[in-house]
């Protein structure tokens, strides 16, 4: 029985790519593409891992991250942030808010797989 991951991302092709990679690795992948409703989805799914894009329609990935860390049930869930904006400022901010991993697009598929495995099985 594989672990579950929720991917919050708005770019359809990227959703497709990541879903493909993680499914092949044995994950159960749920996707969501709206920032405003993301937290509710996360509550319902209670995943083992969250992959969160920074630039989302509605609430931004960083805002959702701080919600997660303030949420009793989700606070301990590992979060991996994805961003296309290559600024160190964003990275620092994300780590400050409690992200476990921060990954800049584009990334290699192998990189993603290593990262998610580490986050769930330390």
């Amino acid at each position, binding site marked *: 029985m594989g672990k579950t991951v929720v991917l919050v991302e*708005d*770019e*359809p*092709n*990227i959703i*497709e*790519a*990541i879903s*493909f*990679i993680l499914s*092949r690795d044995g994950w159960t992948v749920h996707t969501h593409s*709206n920032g405003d409703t993301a937290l509710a989805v996360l509550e319902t799914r209670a995943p083992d891992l969250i992959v969160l894009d920074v*630039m989302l*329609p*509605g609430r931004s990935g960083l805002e959702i991250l701080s919600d997660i860390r303030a949420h009793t049930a989700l606070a301990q869930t590992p979060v991996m942030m994805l961003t*296309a*904006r*290559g*600024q160190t400022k964003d990275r620092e901010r994300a780590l400050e808010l409690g992200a476990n991993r921060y990954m*800049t*697009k*584009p*990334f*290699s*598929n*192998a990189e993603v797989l290593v990262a998610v495995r580490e986050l769930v099985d330390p």
Partner: protein
Amino acid sequence: MSNSLNILAAVCAGYAALLFLVAFVAERAAKRGRARWLNSPIIYTLSLSIYCTAWTFYGAVGFAARSGLEYLTIYIGPTLVMVGWWWVLRKLVRVGRAQRITSIADLISNRFGKSNSLAVLITLMAVAGTTPYIALQLQSVTLSFSVFAAAGPQDTARALDSSEATAFWVALGLALFTVLFGTRNLDVNERHHGVVMAIALEAVVKLIALLAVGVFVVWGLGGGLGPVLAKIESSSISQWEIAPSRWVALIALSGAAFLTLPRMFQVLVVENDDERHLRFAAWAFPSYLLLISLFIVPIAVVGRSVLPAATNPDLYVLSIPLMSGETGLAFLSFLGGFSSATSMVIVAAIALSTMVSNHIVMPIWLRLTGGGALMAGDLRNVVLLSRRFSIIGVVLLGYVYYRLSGGGAALAAIGLVSFAGVAQFLPALLGGLFWRGATRNGALAGLLVGFVIWGWTMFLPSFGPDAALSAAVLAQGPWGLAALRPEALFGFVGLDPLVHAVFWSLSLNSMAFIVVSLVSFPSPLERLQGAQIVDVFKHSSGGQRWRGGMAQSEDLLLMAQRIIGATQAQKLFRNAASAQGLEGYLPEPTPEFLNQLERELAGSVGAATAHAMVGQIVGGAAVSVDDLIAVADEAAQIMEYSSQLEAKSEELSRTARQLREANEKLTELSHQKDAFLSQISHELRTPMTSIRAFSEILRDAQGLSREDQGKYSSIINAESVRLTRLLDDLLDLSVLENGQVSMNIEAGNLCDVLDRAVAAAGLSGRLSIMRRREREQLPITTDLDRLSQVFINLIANAHKYCDAPAPELKIVARAREGRITIDFIDNGLGISRDDQRVIFEKFSRLGDDRESGAGLGLSICREVMQRLGGTISYLPGQGGAAFRVALARAN
């Protein structure tokens, strides 16, 4: 007795008639302007000889007989002033002319802000100080009469009793002469050519008389120069010890009095016609003094040896020729003494009456008649009348003093009382001339202190014990306060009473003047006058400036006529009017004219009164803002400096503001650049992420279905196209923004361009386009491809973003005045007000639709339209999203 007295009376009458004649002729000549000889420096110098009064003529011999060479101090003082202080005199004369000064009271009050209280005080002091002096002249004339009358100098005491009547008649005669010649007319310049001429003649007479007596004494009685010198050598006069303190005090006193005696001020400053006369007088007047003092000692020594011991040495000059039977010489000598006395009384009376009339009578009269200076008849007559009564009053006061003092005191002693009295003006005068920091309050304080001490230590005691002050007060002080004893103030015993009085009065006077000046603050007018008088050589014209906005020229003329006479006033006004280019008698009341008028009036009624009168008419006699600015150079400098500072600080704050704005702009630009780079990064990385992910999947993943392979390859292809388009847009925008693009302008038809754009937009058929082609038949001359690019963008946007169930786009072309507008209106929800402001910015992609486009489309449209000389704007309130493209119409 009666015989000689009758002859004497006849001689006096004849002499008086001669003086009248001289004065009359001089006056007429002056009036006709043919009086160049009147302006000679010789006349000026001779007129200064009124310094030598009967006191000098008779008293010097007495002085020498009693105190040895000390009498010389009275000549040394003025000589030193004349020679060493010519620069003070020059300044006095310059100020006197520049400010039209009529008297010493006028000068000092003028200097200290035209203060009338100061003028009143000085006038009172001058009257008090001069009264003993006039008494002295009366006494000397009376004595000389009595010498003749008694036919023997031994009987002077008895003769004195019968001569009180003589003194009265002499006083009256002098008063009449002065009234006749001193107030014949109200001269604008306050110059009395007739009087000056008469006293110049008298100066000659007294010099000749004294020299004649001297020559007679030396060569007629003394047996030649040698024996007389030997006699002097052996006499007590040569052995008389010189008391240094008395010498210093007397020299200082006579020097001070030379400047401050009202009559000296009158001839020295007021009657001065030409500043250059001072240069001549600087050596001529001391020479005159030398000559007149030449035979004093021989006369005293010889007189003592040939006359009985009881003879009054004050009358040796007269007694010696009488006793020797030289009646002619005696008459000449009498005339010399008479000349000395009369010239002094005449000039002193004129000077004092000017002061009394200008500073006391006229202000009171003006106040009593209130603002009615215009209504109350001929002011000129009032002035003349007050002058005349003042003259009579001054001379009579002298007579009263003469009666009260009993005529007993030695001539020299009375003279010194006067000197010390008027010397009190010196600190205020010199301070006023040279010290800008001197203030009115300081001058008032100094004068009051000096005056009180002088009165207490000198004037009152001069009446003798038990006359004005009781012997007890003199000996023990008032209420037994020894510190206040009149002749030993503050316990200084043993000083000569004269030295004592001069020392205390002048030093405390000066101290009060300086201290109060330092602690008090001058009014603006004081500062203005101070600046003008102290710096008289810098700006020799002036006076406080009037602002004559509401002045009535006619009122001014009425007033001026009453003061300086109708002819004079009309001439003045007509000249002023023609100088302003006006016809008739009424000039504009400009500040210049008002100042000129004030100066003219000041010649008749004094500066303070003239100022007050002009002020009454002009209104707002107070100092104007302009005056305040003109007050002092330093004030102007301070203002200049501060305005420079202000300008500088304004400049600084402007620069600072500019810098701040530039900084804000730079910061904003920097933010925009960061945001732009961040956006670019995002736009580039997103497609690259997909490309990389799927290419890796294709490469690495085993067992992919053909279907998936095709799908992922298509994604890679689509994302590559997206990347390419983004790069194209970026390059396009960059080129447009830098202005590097060249437009391909050609003629065309709007309808054709729209057709092309609709076709190129690649519509899927979901969006219906509504056009009215007949209205689109408009010729245009522009870059047709670029315009088409704009249209494609707008149509594609509508296609992508219109959220209506049945989306449609209305394209409306209108030919307007000088331009063509093409509106693109869809039936969606439109764009929110906040977003409307940013849609033309780069990467301002709205909402959550990210499927295509990099958010650069509208930015490019805006740039293109700008290049084409047109505009693109959002058109609010149209239901859906609405854009208007406008371009200039082709000719």
